[in-house]
């Protein structure tokens, strides 16, 4: 599928995001990798429009991403994949509000969080399904890793559904690194450090894998290297 418009929001976008409208049948890809400040992004989709959003929210300071996504026409589709990573004493907040205001729309949100040292991460994700947004399909998953005893993550996936013929699911997990994986890799000769690095890169790599452009994917990988 060809993409009609690609937006990349990096550091230099400052403390703003922007509003983007995707016209009927058009597609948008939006990538965001900022490290500080508050960034508000609004995406409005008309009938049959498609948007893919991939973000890395990595910070040692204060960082907030706020996505407001409006599905206003039937058959619109949104994919949102992101990683939030709070390091040192940083706090990273990601808020998403995904509003299904039209029938037959689909959305899929996969957000992964990693907090190390004294980092704090928040994922506040709302999926709203309006009364006439029948046949909505909405999936939302939040998976999180705490890498130190002082790290914290708060996750709040929320579904607010006013239509009766929909398929929606959400889930959230918060856990620690899988020690079985670390043991397995060390048994093959990897140092403990390499094993932990690889396990973490796998965890965030499944999100980054949604980026088709190689150079951009490499930029994300670099950003997410702990």
């Amino acid at each position, binding site marked *: 599928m060809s993409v009609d418009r690609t937006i990349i929001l990096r550091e230099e976008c400052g403390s703003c995001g922007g509003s983007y409208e995707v016209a009927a049948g058009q597609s948008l890809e939006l990538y965001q990798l900022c490290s500080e400040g508050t960034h508000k992004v609004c995406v409005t989709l008309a009938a049959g429009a498609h948007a893919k959003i991939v973000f890395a929210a990595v910070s040692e300071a204060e960082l907030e991403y706020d996505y407001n996504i409006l599905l206003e026409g039937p058959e619109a589709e949104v994919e949102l994949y992101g990683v939030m990573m709070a390091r040192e004493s940083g706090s990273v907040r990601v808020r998403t509000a995904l509003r299904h205001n039209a029938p037959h729309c689909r959305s899929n949100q996969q957000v992964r969080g990693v907090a190390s040292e004294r980092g704090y991460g928040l994922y506040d994700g709302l999926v709203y399904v309006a009364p006439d947004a029948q046949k909505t399909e909405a999936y939302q998953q939040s998976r999180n890793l705490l890498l130190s005893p002082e790290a914290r993550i708060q996750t709040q996936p929320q579904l607010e559904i006013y239509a009766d013929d929909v398929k929606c699911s959400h889930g959230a997990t918060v856990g620690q690194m*899988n020690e*079985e*994986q670390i*043991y*397995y*890799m*060390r*048994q*093959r*000769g*990897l*140092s*403990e450090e*390499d094993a932990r690095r*690889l*396990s973490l*890169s*796998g*965890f*965030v*790599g*499944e999100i980054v*894998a949604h980026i088709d452009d190689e150079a951009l994917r490499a930029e994300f990988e670099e950003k997410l290297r702990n």
Partner: protein
Amino acid sequence: MLKVKNLHASVDGKEILRGIDFEVKAGEVHAIMGPNGSGKSTFASVLAGNEKFEVTEGEVEYDGKDLLSMSIEERAREGLFLGFQYPVEIPGVSMANFMKIAVAERRKAQGLEPLSAGQMLKYMREKAAVVELDSKLMNRAVNEGFSGGEKKKNEIFQMAMLEPRLALLDETDSGLDIDALRIVATGVNRLRSENNATVLITHYQRLLDYIVPDFVHVLYKGRIIYSGGKELALKLEKEGYDWLIGDYKE
């Protein structure tokens, strides 16, 4: 190559291994059998250095070194390989990437130059062919979405890649159909040499039809209570363990 003396180990304060004596020389194949819960997998895990278990007594000498003072990865780099009963899935980490690092570490410990990207690719294909493993799996995440048979073949593939001195195969035969079992066994047999040794941990005589051991040991309640030649496995298959363990029951 391996000398285990009076090895005791516990998990959560419960003693599982209660004084194991065991010796393996280069070129040998040993089979360790025994009823469920007798400590077979624990023994393999302790030799691999699994930190879940605490060694409370005993010594293990491996190629003249004190194995118990080595880290998990030092043991692996020195050629100790454990084939897992339940191979672990590592989402997002490709087999190719994982093997690249593992092989580089093993070669470094052997004083060998690292392989070039091209050599590595060729080496992986060669070794995958040994266990009839589809080399397309190299681009997939480690064990993720692999069938039961593929996971076990993947263990033997990794063993082939790392060319261990001592391979411990923990229930590698469990859950395999007869074709996969034959492939796995053929792989193990092809990797046998007079410089390395294999320890098979198994429930069933079946595997030993394909990989013929030099010695068979019975582990029961954390001790090796009986050792014999390959004919012991057949006797156990026919008669069970009761004739052996009667004296040890509490």
